[in-house]
């Protein structure tokens, strides 16, 4: 059975690119176009991993992450954002994200993070 990946991003283009990269590696993909839909989809689809944008119109990504953690402390979450400020990296790490990748995305960057996080054993 294919592992399921949830992509939460308000950019159709980013979702499209991520979907192609992730599907090319044999994963099943579900999408959400904003933070609230992402939380709902997580509840409905119970994905194995989430790619999560930070700057979205309805919710900031780290607020979405906090909600996901409430629902599932073991949720695997990779933040995918264009924000390269050091303080953002620190906030993302403090919020407990499993990895951070910068946009623009490349297949190498995405798949490396995906494989690393998927191979980690969650003990929470």
């Amino acid at each position, binding site marked *: 059975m294919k592992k399921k990946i949830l992509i939460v991003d*308000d*950019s*159709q*283009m*980013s979702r*499209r*690119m991520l979907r*192609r*990269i992730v599907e*090319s590696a044999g994963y099943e993909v579900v999408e959400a176009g904003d933070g609230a839909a992402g939380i709902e989809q997580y509840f409905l689809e119970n994905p194995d991993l989430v790619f999560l944008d930070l*700057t*979205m*119109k309805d919710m900031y990504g780290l607020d979405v992450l906090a909600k996901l953690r409430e629902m599932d402390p073991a949720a695997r979450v990779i933040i995918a*954002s*264009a*924000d*390269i*400020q*050091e*303080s*953002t990296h620190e906030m993302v790490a403090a919020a407990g994200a499993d990895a951070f990748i910068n*946009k*623009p*995305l*490349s*297949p*190498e960057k995405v*798949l490396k993070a995906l494989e690393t996080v998927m191979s980690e054993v969650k003990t929470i």
Partner: protein
Amino acid sequence: MTLTDRQTDALGEFINIAFSRTASSLSEITGQRVLLEVPQVEIYPIEEVASNLARFLPGDVASIHQPFDGAIAGDAFLILNYEGAVRLTELLTDNGGVRQQYLDESAREVLTEVGNILLNACLGMFGNVLRVRVNFTVPNLHLESLDELIDSVSKEHDGLRYAIIIYTAFRIRESAVTGYLVLVLSVVSLQRLIEEIERWEERQEQEIHTSQNPAKSDLSV
């Protein structure tokens, strides 16, 4: 001119990346966290540009204006409310904690240089991501009203009837500095920008295809 949803989305995503680089540079320069809103894309007749920008920043403003040309030509602006501009220069200079009330010669110089760094960080993404060369001229600091500034820009470009305004608000946390990053493009340059963004997406797709079929691509070399 109207953009499809897909074009608007792709443009917004590219600008998000470009403006995020600007925010990162501003964060490095000031040592403060910079909060950036989601970029907005709007098209206006040139005579309506100033009034539409003024609704965000009423009153006196300080604008750093960076014209650029090449395959894509236009005008980039870093627009700060006057008070915010004064506070930004205080963040960047050691003035012994003395509260400034206005932008003196030295502060104007600092502000122009900061604007140059920030706008180049943004416009540099045209080259780095889209592989489109843009040429910069020296940035100018303007302290006149937005009306006068936009009027002077539209007079410089005879063919500029409509302008695409791509803007985002930013705020430096722990300070009173807020402002806008704005790109004004002619319809012709906007069309070119959209084409280049579509090529960028095609290149990304090609990259995915190549990563899926490394053996085939090796053989084709």
